[in-house]
Each structure stands twice: as C-alpha cells, then as structure tokens.
C-alpha cells in the first residue's frame, strides 16, 4: 500500500459518496480539496458514513483492517481528514 494507491481509493470512494448522497460540489476534486470544516465537502454525519465506506474499501483492496478513529478528527488544524493528501498520510502512518 503506497500513497498513490491510497489516494486513488480515497478519490473513488469520495466521488461515489458525493454522488450517492447528492452533495453539492461543483469544483474539481484534487488532493488539497477541503474535506471537513466550513468550506469542506463533508459534514460530521457525512464523515461518519464516509469513514465506514473508506475502511471497507481499504480492507477489500489491501486485506487489512484499519480503524480511522482519531481524537482530533473534527479539528480544523490537526484533523487527518483535512484533505485527501493528509488523509492518505495518516492512513499510511497508522498502518506502519
């Protein structure tokens, strides 16, 4: 599992999630797109569902079970869910 592979999975799951949940988002999605916070794509409930989808996608792709629980998940400053890049870094870190 490397950063590129992870980012690809996060992109895929995020795009599906946006579509399935009719989330209004008309910008181009990239690694720096804000996921949470006032300018983010996901509200706190969306984030819970997204985490469930992402954990399962990672399990299916790499046959590993990870738990994306984190005490600072909704923090604007330190959350690993700030954008796709920070999220993939975080997943690589907890899977070390």
């Amino acid at each position: 599992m490397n950063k590129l592979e992870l980012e690809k999975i996060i992109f895929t799951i995020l795009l599906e999630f946006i579509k399935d949940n009719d989330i209004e988002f008309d910008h181009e999605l990239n690694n720096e797109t804000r996921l949470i916070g006032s300018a983010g794509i996901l509200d706190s409930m969306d984030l819970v569902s997204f985490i469930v989808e992402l954990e399962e996608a990672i399990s299916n792709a790499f046959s590993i079970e990870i738990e994306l629980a984190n005490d600072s998940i909704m923090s604007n400053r330190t959350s690993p869910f700030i954008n796709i890049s920070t999220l993939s870094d975080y997943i690589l870190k907890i899977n070390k």
Partner: protein
Amino acid sequence: MKKVLITGNRKGIGRFLTEKFIDNGYFVIGCSRQASDLVNDNYIHMICDVINDNNIVELFRELKKKDINIDILINNAGIASMNHFITTPSNTSTNIFNTNLHATLNFSKYAAKMMIKKKWGRIINFSSVAVPLNLEGELSYASSKAAVESASKIMSKELGVFGITVNCIGPNPIETDLIRTLSKDKISSLLDNQSIKRLGEFEDIWNVVAFYISDSSNFVNGQCIYLGGIC
C-alpha cells in the same frame, strides 16, 4: 434472515434470548469466554472476553470474513458486585465498568459500522432498576449501568440519522447468577420498590426486546424501559 449478535449468552438471559431469536427465525451469533453447548444451524458461537479490545476486533474481523453483517446487537454481558463502596476493591469497580460500559461501547461501535451501511439497525443495552432506585451496596454496578443509559441516549442521537435505534432495558431482579447471592430479605425489600411485586422472568425481557426490534418501533429511540413497575 436478520443477524443478531448477543454478548455473554452462554447462560442466563443471554441464552434465553438466543433461543428465542432462533425460534423466531433469526440467525444468532453468540459470544462468551467459554464455549457454548448450543447447537443449531442458525447459530454460531465465538469465544470472546468482552473486556479484551483485541478479542472484540478479532470477533468482528471473523464476522466480516464470514460475510455476516449484524442487524441487531444485544449488549447483554454484564457483571455485578454487592459491597459497601468503602470496602469495594478498586479493581472490582474497574472490572465492572470495563464489562458493563466499555464492552457495550466497543461492541456498539463495530456493530454500528455494519448497520450504517444498511441504514437499519437495532442496539439494545442492559441497564438495571438499580439505577432509578440508587440501590445502596451496588454503587459500582448501578453507576456503571447509569453510564450505559447515558451512553445509550447519546448513541441514539448520533445513530438515529442512520436508521439505527438504541434503547435500554432495565430489568428488575430476575432469577439469574447476578442475584443468586442475595438474601431473601434483600430480595423482598427490592420487590417492595416495585408496583408489581414479583421477580422478573426471562419472558418479560423478551417482550421488551421484541418491541424494540420491531420494524414498527423505528420511532422508538433513546428510551429505557424498566420492568416491575419501577418509575
């Protein structure tokens, strides 16, 4: 066929509920520290110490491998201790909170992740009449169950949006291992607190469980029903 996970189901209320669910057409996954003698095509038993986080993670990993997604979780596993709080060893309190509260939270978390995907789920937690009665001699037990009630209410708010309801049952004294050590006088004084003065029966528990899990109860969330007319 709906899948039900029942913790601490080798005997007592858990065993009774397991057989009731099977009789009513559910597939049941039971877990306890020791093996179960229950054999049924619609039943599997998993060895799990509910206060061991790794055991719980492993249990849910196994369920995923077997492609079993939980629809209904019954957090039944629980322990009690009768003692004045001054003479209660601190590790007894820790064990009680780990079993009654932390195991409930952990099982609920992993089961809820499965339920969120289905947008349907039922979580039933066990409180006790020791909470509203504030029974002396049961400080650790009653306060752990009070925490379970509070946790259930907050869970119900956080999970309701996903079609998952979280409710509690507060049994009165029932003929189980938990009250076998109580004197007749103590049981009699406990029953005096009830408007209907009898020991509870397993069927009384099932009656409330059947109500909570019903599809028609999708508007019943964050509640605690006490048995025996405690209010």
